[in-house]
């Protein structure tokens, strides 16, 4: 079996894995990082969104070979104590209903805020429209992104 080296949540890992395995399954089944969810499996829903080199990729579509030698951040890597501004904002705005899509929503929001620290409503809509929420929490998601931007400006971790 081939060996793939990548950095996940700041930690170097070596996986004995078929290089055509989707990153999602490398994270969930090989590294036990189950915060990243399997939704549709065809890159249509956004539940499996993780950050790969600053981009909000759909891990069900990304082959683990694309991540070789690169850095991946999952929901588990945002903070050890839920203190990341986006996590805090999600709690303050009580965003989730069932919660299944929310790790993907949060990861996409962190990527947006990295390049747009004070996004407008339409920039939030553009950035997160690939992350579907069957509970329809979109209005709370939008409020939480604004709140996260505010928390980040104030210096919350």
């Amino acid at each position: 079996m081939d060996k793939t080296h990548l950095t996940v949540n700041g930690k170097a890992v070596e996986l004995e894995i078929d290089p055509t395995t989707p990153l999602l399954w490398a994270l969930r089944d090989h590294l036990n990082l189950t915060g990243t969810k399997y939704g549709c499996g065809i890159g249509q829903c956004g539940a499996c969104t993780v950050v790969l080199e600053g981009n909000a990729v759909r891990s069900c579509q990304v082959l683990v070979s694309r991540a070789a030698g690169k850095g991946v951040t999952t929901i588990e890597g945002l903070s050890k104590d839920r203190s990341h501004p986006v996590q805090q904002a999600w709690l303050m705005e009580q965003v989730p209903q069932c919660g299944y899509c929310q790790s993907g929503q949060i990861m996409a929001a962190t990527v947006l805020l990295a390049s747009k620290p004070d996004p407008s409503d339409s920039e939030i809509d553009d950035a997160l429209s690939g992350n579907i929420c069957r509970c329809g929490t979109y209005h709370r998601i939008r409020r939480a992104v604004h709140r996260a931007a505010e928390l980040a400006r104030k210096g919350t971790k």
Partner: protein
Amino acid sequence: MFAMTTAKYRASAQTQKDEESIRAFSAVASVLLSPRCLNCHIPGDSPLQGDAQTPHNMNVKRGPDGRGTPAMRCTNCHQATNSSQLHAPPGRPDWRLPPPSMPLVWKGLSVAGICRALKDPATNGGMTSAQLIEHVSDDPFVNWAWNPGPGRSVPPLSHDEFVSRFKEWIEAGAACPKE
């Protein structure tokens, strides 16, 4: 008298050459009008998808460099190769739309309009005739149209035939049909 005959002959030969060129372009246009080409050669900022040419899911936008908007980059979903799964994203390296500075719009144009847009360096990405031939022959995006992944039709001509008719069009003078 002789001069007039020569002029008429030249005019007639030119007309015949133009007709050949236009006939070749009609075949070329049948490819350019396929969903594989038109879905991304769009006016505005929102691409289309599939053979039905419906608006791309997820409110995808062109973005400042043609590669999407923050957190919604094309390559977040489109990988370096096609997905083997039905309804999953097609792929090739650096999946993108034409940039807003040179959007290469064909959708909505007539065949004559596409012909003019294609040969005008101001609207074709600054390409010469030779570069256009090279582009349609070798560009991985062009070639992708004949290997688009499951559930997507391919253009009506083979790639070889398309390139051959494209060269005929250029070599016969790159004439464009009238509206």
